[in-house]
């Protein structure tokens, strides 16, 4: 009788493949990690942390974000409280330039090196781009040298070029979820349209920031699919959000992602994306609470959004800065990003 082939342990394989060689896990391997039993989470997080330290270093990139144009979006992203297609309590609002300058200053004062200007739109029109241009100028005139990123939806080539010319160094456009699950989440545009914008952004020389939201009804296999699709994009940054079931949206009654599941996701994404800036973004407060955020930071995450989000609130920035201090994780300095 022939002995059954010994099952290769995925974390053992990851140690050699990802930690030693810097090669991200395959889709099958990511799925194996996501399917690990809960008692192996500490081992997974320890390995993910080692991978992050080896391939990214000890520094943590801190970012603040602000909504320049809130609500009234024509798209139907089912997770989003800013869609005009759902009966969400979020009303439309525009932030004026002095408000934008203040928000950038608040962000810079936390020690953050990144400030992302976000608008709830399908893509920017002339008015919005003009507001961004004026905003960037005003932030610089305020003596603030923070790196400026934007997230303004889908772009044309001309708009990409315009943002480059303004000095926007990074562009966020999330693929949100696996390609196979995207049509269940958004019907007003396609995953491929988002991909096209990301390609133009990369080719124009801006840094690519692209992540998504965990907990939108995707299967574990689709979560693994998403991780490797992101890896194929080779983004500079991946923001990892956990669904906030917002009232009025189609997902308002979806459960909050459980902490153990979220930690496995964090670890798995780090092992799929060993060299990428992996950022804790929205939803961590509900999913993890205070303790879990610390576990995530010790489990492969090397960037955070501090302070509030676009329509939801985050922890006070100082609490996160104190946490990083307690973990002896240095904040990336602005000089090292230039």
């Amino acid at each position, binding site marked *: 009788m022939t002995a059954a082939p010994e099952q290769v342990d995925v974390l053992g394989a990851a140690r050699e493949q990802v930690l030693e060689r810097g090669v991200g896990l395959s889709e099958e391997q990511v799925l194996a990690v996501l399917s690990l039993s809960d008692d192996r989470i500490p081992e997974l997080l320890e390995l993910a942390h080692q991978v992050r330290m080896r391939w990214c270093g000890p520094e943590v990139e801190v970012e*603040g974000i*602000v909504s320049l144009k809130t609500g009234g979006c024509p798209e139907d992203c089912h997770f989003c409280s800013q869609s005009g297609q759902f009966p969400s309590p*979020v*009303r439309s609002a525009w932030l004026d330039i002095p408000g934008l300058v*203040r928000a950038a200053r608040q*962000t810079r004062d936390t020690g953050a090196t990144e400030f992302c200007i976000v608008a709830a739109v399908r893509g920017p029109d002339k008015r919005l781009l003009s507001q961004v241009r004026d905003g960037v100028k005003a932030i610089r005139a305020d003596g603030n040298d923070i790196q400026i990123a934007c997230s303004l939806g889908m772009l044309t080539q001309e708009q990409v070029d315009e943002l480059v010319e303004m000095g926007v160094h990074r562009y966020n456009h999330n693929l949100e979820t696996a390609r196979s699950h995207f049509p269940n989440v958004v019907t007003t545009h396609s995953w491929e349209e988002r991909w096209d914008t990301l390609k133009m952004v990369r080719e124009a020389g801006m840094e690519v920031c692209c992540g998504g939201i965990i907990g939108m009804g995707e299967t574990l296999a689709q979560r693994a699919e998403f991780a490797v699709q992101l890896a194929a994009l080779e983004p500079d940054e991946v923001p990892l959000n956990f669904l906030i079931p917002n009232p009025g949206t189609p997902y308002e009654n979806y459960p909050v992602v459980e902490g153990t599941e979220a930690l496995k996701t964090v670890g798995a994404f780090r092992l799929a994306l060993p060299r990428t800036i992996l950022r804790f973004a929205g939803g961590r407060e509900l999913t993890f609470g205070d303790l879990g955020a610390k576990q995530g930071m010790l489990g492969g995450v090397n960037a955070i959004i501090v302070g*509030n989000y676009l329509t939801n*609130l985050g922890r006070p920035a100082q609490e996160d800065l104190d946490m990083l201090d307690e973990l002896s994780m240095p904040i990336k300095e602005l000089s090292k990003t230039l």
Partner: protein
Amino acid sequence: MTAVYCGYCGKEVGEADHSACAKRLRVIDPPRFCSVCARRMVVQVTPAGWTATCSRHGETTSG
């Protein structure tokens, strides 16, 4: 002024159990409804705070 309506769901405070609403307001949400008249407010969230404006009862901030 006394809060008559829940800032999270806009329903009367005495009408139902608002403990889940209170948790959301404590952890991740600014108020969306005016506590005096239940009108939906225009809310601007910024990195360090929020401002909520009711067309009838004016502005509230995170302080």
